[in-house]
């Protein structure tokens, strides 16, 4: 590695700079990029799949793909982070299609449109979300969402991506991200209300959705 390239690593190189060094065979650049991005990729895969084994495999796959096909990355189409998340997403969906037992998806949510309309209720456990068990309930509710809703919640709410970033990862329009997130959150509220402890709820509203 040239001296000037070594010097580059002393600063904080961008992902694109690291990728250029990786393509030149720089091991340090690969390690730097891996350590910078692996946490997010691993958590995304874990939150999408609910399986540590899948998350590990997906993380490994993502960086193996980066090793072998980094030259295919086009900065004009989005950030390297989005590119990596996109690879991770494809591998997660592939893994889940192979082994559906990891996710007990309540597909009936989509089919039961009436349930979508009942977003608020008398007995609402959402007010107890600060409790640890409710954090776990939220996590499980996210995992139980249909995949195309789950991924927008994971990206936008858990990984705090903007709609534009999420659209790069998922390869769809910003408007689609926005509408899916809205629906996904509605499903989450419904799911949490359905599984919560009625005794803790104190919602003042009725179960009917308000469309005045």
């Amino acid at each position, binding site marked *: 590695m040239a001296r000037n390239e070594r010097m580059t690593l002393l600063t904080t190189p961008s992902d694109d700079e690291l990728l250029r060094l990786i393509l030149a*065979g720089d*091991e*340090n650049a*690969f*390690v730097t990029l*891996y*350590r910078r991005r*692996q*946490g997010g*990729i*691993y*958590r995304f895969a*874990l*939150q999408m799949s609910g399986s*540590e*084994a*899948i998350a*590990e*495999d997906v*993380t*490994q796959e993502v*960086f*193996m793909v980066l*090793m*072998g096909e980094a030259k295919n990355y086009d900065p004009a189409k989005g950030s390297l982070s989005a590119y990596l998340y996109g690879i991770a997403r494809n591998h997660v969906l592939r*893994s889940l299609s192979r082994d559906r037992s990891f996710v007990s998806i309540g597909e009936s949510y989509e089919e039961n449109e009436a349930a979508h309309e009942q*977003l*608020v209720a008398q007995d*609402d456990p*959402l*007010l107890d*979300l*600060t409790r640890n068990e*409710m*954090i776990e309930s*939220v*996590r499980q509710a*996210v995992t139980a969402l249909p995949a195309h809703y789950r991924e927008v*919640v994971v990206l*936008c*709410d*858990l*990984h*705090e991506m903007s709609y534009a970033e999420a659209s790069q990862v998922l390869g769809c329009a910003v408007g689609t991200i*926005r509408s899916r*997130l*809205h629906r996904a*959150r509605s499903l*989450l*509220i419904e799911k*949490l209300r359905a599984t919560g402890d009625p005794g803790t709820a104190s*919602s*003042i*509203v*009725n179960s*009917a*959705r*308000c*469309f*005045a």
Partner: protein
Amino acid sequence: MSCRNLELVITELARGQMLEARVKEDALAHMDGCQRCAARFANEQTLTAGLRAVSASASSVEAPGGVEQSLLAAFRQRQVGGVPAAFIAPAPVHKPRWIPLSIAAAAAILVVSVLASQLIPSGNSNAPLSNQARVSQPAPVPAEDSDPLGLGDEPEVAAGGPEQRADDVQPPLRSVNRRRDLVRNDGPNRGRMQNAVNYGTASNSESELTTDFLPLTYGSNLAQIEDGQVVRVELPRSALQSFGFHVSAERAGERVKADVLLGHDGVARAIRFVR
């Protein structure tokens, strides 16, 4: 603002996203007079808090260190070149989800094994220790074993963590006379295998120098091989690169001897270089 219009912005409002000031004011004003929408908004805010709590609780979760080790080993193998992709694919960490790659790796290893078998000198069966090799219990590594083999121009072995580069480490080379066939497996997935394993040798020369047996497949535990066969082959010197040895371009065409350790199933498990 109507309840329906509020519904269009309630997600962004609850998530604290940027909204036009007038839209936000209208939404808040509507909720002041609409209990249902106020409750709906409260639920959205509570959900936002719950999701942020989930995010915060997982913020320190990272991939296990074994993943980095596997990837680093694969990266190094790619850089030295000449190794089929099936060889450099790291093994799965938890479950065998790399089945297609594993099949490809097995096929590639089988081809190597067949080719290696065809290269065995006919007189090899007269070797003092024969081709049969058996694994004994792990033995300690002698500290004085550091004879350079000189197989490469500057023999180097990639080992250790990411901070440790290939050109920082000298390979553990030793004379067959003093201690032969010490095997070390720098397993890419689950840390290093500390056990050392003794094997028989195909060598019939007491003056030969050998490297350690180097595993041909990631994650393979050489200590678990109960029976094996060692066959002598000749390879281009450039093959040394695949195992972390530095080879100059001028000498890449030369040939070097190597012992291939075959498992009882005929699959090549490890290789060592001989001089």
